[in-house]
Structure formats: C-alpha cells, structure tokens
C-alpha cells in the first residue's frame, strides 16, 4: 500500500505531565489495584465485625489515641513537601525537588518509628484472634507501602545527586508524588476503624 504523508509531529515535545503522560495512566492503574485491595480489606473488617459477639475482643488495649493520631497527622503532613517537589519538577528545578524529597523522607522515617511503637504496644498478635489478624495484616500491608515510598524517595534523591537526570524523570517525580498522596490518604479509613472508633466511642476499652 502506498503511503501519503499527512501529519508532521516533529514539533511536539518529548515529555508531558499529568494525564497526558502514559506513566500517569500506569500509576493510576496501580492505585486502582491497590485501592481495591484496601477497600476489600476494609469490607472484610466489617464482614467479620458483623458476625462477632464481642468487637474488639476483650483484653485488646488501645495503643493510645494521641500516638496513633500523631502518626496519621505526620503522614498527612508529609504530602506537603511532596507537593513542593512536584511543583519544582514542573519548573525543572532540581534543587527544589531534592529539598522536597528530603523533608518528606525525614517525615516518612518518623511515621515508621511511631508506627513501630504503636504496633509494639498492641497486647495481641496476628495469631491471637481474627481482630488481631486484621489489624496486623492491614498495618503490615500499609507499612510495606510506606517503606516502598521511602525507598523510592531515596532512589530519586540518589539519582538527583548522581545523575544523569533525564527529562522524563520530572514526570516520574510528579507521579511519585501522586502515589505518595494515595499511600498517605489510604491510611485514613484504617485509622478510623482501628484507632479512632474504639478510642472515642468506647472509652472503657
């Protein structure tokens, strides 16, 4: 078949941000998968709770409303430096990206330290009862995400220091931020069911 040139695209750029970029669709797909996973764990909690005579089981002491709330707060605050890193990526400001990522990484470490303290205070294990299985599995699964986010940030920082930084890495920084928002926000519902609800509504517990 003969070809007839119809459209010249040599003027088009080689990077684009947001939904224009393929990688954005990839990361949104990943978020949809993991979001479904979190949603189903959330549903499983209520399924088991609905059948339970006693919920949470007796002897399950609250690890502390203040500590767990502080943990969530720091996690949410870490979105701010990530936001500035993304802004800097739009400006091609490599130093700005680095600053944002470093601050977020420090906050991320704080989150992990407090998370470790919270888990160490739990008076039951994953093999004590179904409630314990739920809380340990969910927290473990989410912590794995926080650790992955931390490692990703460290990887970006290393890349920004060592180079070569290519134009597409700006888009990568941007979608990495998006994914971090997802990781931070996905803890909110679990904080509510595991810590806020029993902490506020049932003070005897």
């Amino acid at each position: 078949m003969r070809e007839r040139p119809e459209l010249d695209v040599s003027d088009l750029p080689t990077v684009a941000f947001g939904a224009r970029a393929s990688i954005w669709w990839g990361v949104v797909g990943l978020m949809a998968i993991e979001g479904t996973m979190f949603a189903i764990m959330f549903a499983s909690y209520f399924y088991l709770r609905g059948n339970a005579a006693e919920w949470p089981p007796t002897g399950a002491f609250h690890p502390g409303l203040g500590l767990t709330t502080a943990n969530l707060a720091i996690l949410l605050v870490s979105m701010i430096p990530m936001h500035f890193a993304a802004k800097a990526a739009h400006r091609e400001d490599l130093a700005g990206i680095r600053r944002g990522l470093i601050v977020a990484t420090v906050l991320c470490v704080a989150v992990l330290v407090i998370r470790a303290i919270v888990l160490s205070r739990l008076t039951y294990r994953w093999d004590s009862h179904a409630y314990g299985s739920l809380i340990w599995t969910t927290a473990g699964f989410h912590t794995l995400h926080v650790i992955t986010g931390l490692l990703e940030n460290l990887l970006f920082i290393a890349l920004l220091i060592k180079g070569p930084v290519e134009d597409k890495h700006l888009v990568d920084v941007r979608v990495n931020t998006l994914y971090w928002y997802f990781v931070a926000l996905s803890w909110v519902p679990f904080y509510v069911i595991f810590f806020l609800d029993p902490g506020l509504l049932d003070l005897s517990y």
Partner: protein
Amino acid sequence: MSVAEIQETEEGYAGHAAEERRRLEKTWAFSSGFFGWFMEVSHTALGRRYIATAMILFLLGGIEALLMRIQLARPENGFLDPDLYNEIFTTHGSTMMFLFAVPVFQGLAIYLVPLMLGTRNTAFPRLNALSYWLFVIGALLLYGGFFLNTGPDAGWFAYVPLSGPEYSPGKRVDVWAQMITFSELSSLAASVNIIATVFKHRAPGMSLNRIPLFVWAMLVTAVMVVFAMPAVMLASTLLAMDRLVDTHFFNIAEGGDPLLFQHLFWFFGHPEVYIIFIPALGVVSAITATFSRRQVFGYMAMVLSLVATGFIGFGLWVHHMFATGLPQLGQSFFTAASMMIAIPSGTQIFCWLATLWSGRLRLNTPLYFVFGFVAIFVLGGLTGIMLASVPLDLQVHDTFFVVAHLHYVLIGGAIFPLFGGLHFWFPKMTGRMLSERLGKLGFWLLFIGFNLTFFPMHKLGLEGMPRRVYTYLPETGWGDLNLLATAGGVVLGLGVLTFLINVAVSLRSGEVAGADPWEGETLEWAIPSPPPPYNFLHLPTVSGRSPLWENWEEQPVVTGVESHRREVLVTASLDAEPDHRDILPGPTIWPFVLALGVGVTFIVAIFTPWGVPIGAVPCAIALVAWFWPRGDMGRYELKEKS
C-alpha cells in the same frame, strides 16, 4: 504537476522509505542470542510467546481432562486413585482458569492491540516482559508442585475449611495459593499496560468511537481485571497466612469466617468468567466483520453491551453461593442481576446475526468457529438462566449439570472464538496460511467432540451425579452416559491434535500469506506478515472505524517521529489528537531478574515467613537497576540550575 514530476516524487519517496526502514530495523531490532531471549521487550515477540506458553498449558490441562474422563468411563474404575484424582481435577481447573484462559487472551491482546491502534509497542514494554516471566514462573510452580506430589488438591477455588491448615496439612494448598497470587500479579501488570496503551497510544484520528471492537473488548477486560483480581490475590494471601503464620481470617473459633473466603473468591471468580469471555467477544466481532465483508452491525450497541457486561459482571458473585444459606433478599437481588446479564449478551448475539445476515459471507474456518461459538454459547447461556434461579440451583448444585453449564459457557464462549482467532491471525503472526481442509476437519471434530462430551453431563447432573467424585457405583446407571462423554472427550482431543498438525505443517509449508490475506478491516493488516519489529514504517492516521476499507488506495501517515531512537507518538485519551512523542526503553534483563526475585519470595515463603525479607533483596536490586537511567534512550539530559 506533470506525470514525470509525480514519478520523480514517488521515486524520491521510495528512497526515503528505504532509508527509514533501514534505520528503524536497527533501532527496534529484536533481541538475539541466548541472553537476548530473556531480555526481549517487543510486544509481537512476547505476545507470540505468551500464546505459545498458554497453549502448552492448555494441552496439559486437556491431558488432565482426558485422564479424568478415562477414570469416569465406567463405574468403579481403578485407573486413578482418589488422591491423584483430586490433584488432577484441581490442577485441571487451576490451569485452565488461571494459566490458560486469561493469559492466552492477554497474549493475543499484547500482540494485536498495538497493531490495531497503529503504534510500535505497548506503553510499557518492560512491564510486558515482567508479566510474561511472572506467568511462566507461576506455571512452573504449579507443575513443579504437581510432579513432586505436592500438587494442590482442594479444587480450583480451594474453599476453606477444606483448604485450611486443619484439613489440608502439608504444602499442597500453599502451592495453589502462591501460584494464584503470582499469576494474578502477572495479569494485573498486563492489564495496566493494555489500558495505558489503549488510552494513550492510538493512531491520530482514532477517537474512542473508532476503536476496533476487539480493542474495546480487551480494554473492558483489562479494567475488570484491575478491580476483580485484587480480591482473589487477597483471598489467596489471607489463606496462605492462615496456613503459614496462624492468622485466623477463616477460622470460626477465633472470630474468623469461612464464608468470607467464598465472598472474596467469587467477587473475583464471577468477573473472571467475563474476563475470559469478553476478549472472545472481541475476537468474534473481528472475525464476523471480516468474513461478512461489512462493519459489525450496531457498533454503539456492541460497545455499550461490552461495558454493561463489565459492570453487571461484578454484581453476580453471590449466585455461586446460593447453597450457603444467605438472606432471601440477597438471593433475589443476585438472581435478578444474573438474569439481567442476558440483555447485553443477547444484544451482541443479535448484532452479530444482523451482521452475518446482511453481509456477503466468506465461509472460511474462522467463521465456522464463530458459528460454533453462537450455537454452543447460546446453550450455555440458557442453562445459565436456569441456574440463576435459586430453587433449581439448589437442586443441581455441585452436580454435573453445573460442569456441563460451565464448559458450554467457557469452551463455547471462549475456546471456539480463540481457535477462530488463531486461524484468523495465524497468517499475520507467522506469514503463512493454515490449511483450510485441516482447519474445517478440526472444527467439526471439536464441535462434535465437545457436544458428545458435555451434553450428556446435563442429564447426568439432573440424575444426581455429583461433581468431583472419582468414581460411582454401577447401580446408579450413569455408566453409559459417562462412557459416551469419554468417547466425546477422545474426539475433542483428536480435534486439538488436528489443529496442532495443521500448525506444524503450515509453519513449514503453508501458503505464503502476504500482508492482508483476508482483506481485513483493521490496521494490523496494513503491515507485512509477520510484522517487522517496528510494526509500521510510518505511523498511520485514521479517519474512520475501518481504516483499511476506507484508505485502501493509500495510507495517510505521520511523519516527524524520530527513527534513531525508540520513539512513539502519544495521543490524547479521548480524541486521539497528537500530544507528544514518547521514547520507549529497549531490551533489558531486569524484568526477568525481578520475576525471579518475586518467585524466590513466594516460593521460600511457603516454607518460612523469612521468604519475604529474603526475596525483597533481589527484588529491590532488580527494581533499582530497572529504574536507573543508562543514558541509552536518546533522552534530553537536564542540568542543575544555579
């Protein structure tokens, strides 16, 4: 312009084209050599490999089916002992559902979607390699277990408590659980890839309402995978945890609930049926259009039916659990939803019939398979409507009636279209035609063999023969129909054998196909068979739903896409306006290493929870190496601003 001048321009164009072809061949070359085989990222190479691997698993699953049929051929047969029978039916179901039916269509999608969209590769070529290798390792895990006498034996759905730590000690169910998590990871990666490719890498002008129906089917399937597969991954992970680290998700004594497993499993399991079946609908549409020589009737109705099926498919899962004593209201809801699915399915059947009715038919083998599909699938659909009603479902639950129904739906609904599709696209993939005579012979053997095997099962089920029993007593009177079913199984096997012979003979001495042997409708027929590694010399543009029928004289193309690096055109997600040029990565070993790392994690975790941290190390190394730029993509390097 004088004739001479046109001649001159055309010669000039031909010279330019030859130069462009040379550069593209260098840039997009397939990987070669032993290590190159593990580094391949080309979607045509990986798609072909995906299909071939899935077909090998189909043969293994088929052999298992024949072994079961031999065992059931007469009452009180001693061919297989009960334990081996359990392993074989579990491996058969798990293979066919997880390692054949889903991957084979994903392979077809990986191969065809970029061609139909008019691009050079999928959006994430290395992710493609990762999904392929995960799939292979998942298959090796299942069959490694099977041949080491550790094959799963609790059914392809592995219900607790049977599959729980108390009633299934040993490692058999762990192999199943890890294989599931594995193969679903692979499917999820492939699906995200397909979604991104469909939304971002279409030829300019191919707005959403011009996407080929095959691509729509693959898109809807991929979206369903994204929302369905996490449920089964969670189910298999929680099951593995209950077994390996003593959690109590499904342990009723400690506040867990076995029914939770069924909900999680079927929240995936029912959409899974459509994940297998919807791609087949896409294949049927492609074949019907080409062999009726007209566009499929009712494009909009077809697309909306696909999307509606995708949604309703998520509201049916409880009809697998009617026998678990759920509230009446819930049962009624799921009965209604199960019947509602007949509406979009029926719409599509009628649209195809209208297409065939008003087309000028060309009766080649692929169309035979479409006819076979319509006949068998309608029967399977009718028993589906019967099963949607709770009283009948309770009566025939766990009998051969259900076995008959599900094989009518899945073999009729997926395998017949698949074979049609393989006959249809074989010339594109290999450059040679399959023999029509052997093709039609194979079709009749499959069609007759299939009905002989599975039709009697309806009656056996109504007479009360339960599923998953390794034998039955002579007094039951089920011997004759079972013998008939076994004879049918042999005919079915001969049909598959005929297909294999056809492939083997045609690969060596089949008629050379040329670019477009069927006068096809969509863009894959615009390029040579088999496609060169870069697919299109110049990326095409599109001005309608049937690009090859509309631009049969000359193909309008895009210029200005660089050929010295792996550059592709990215277009807007709705209207496919050109947006930017993306640069894709070349061959790399890291997806293979990552798949191995994931394999180590999951396999060691069967024996000790330390498998997770141990496996995390190679995974992390592979991911960093995957991400780290090598400066070989021809990208613009950024400098620090002072």
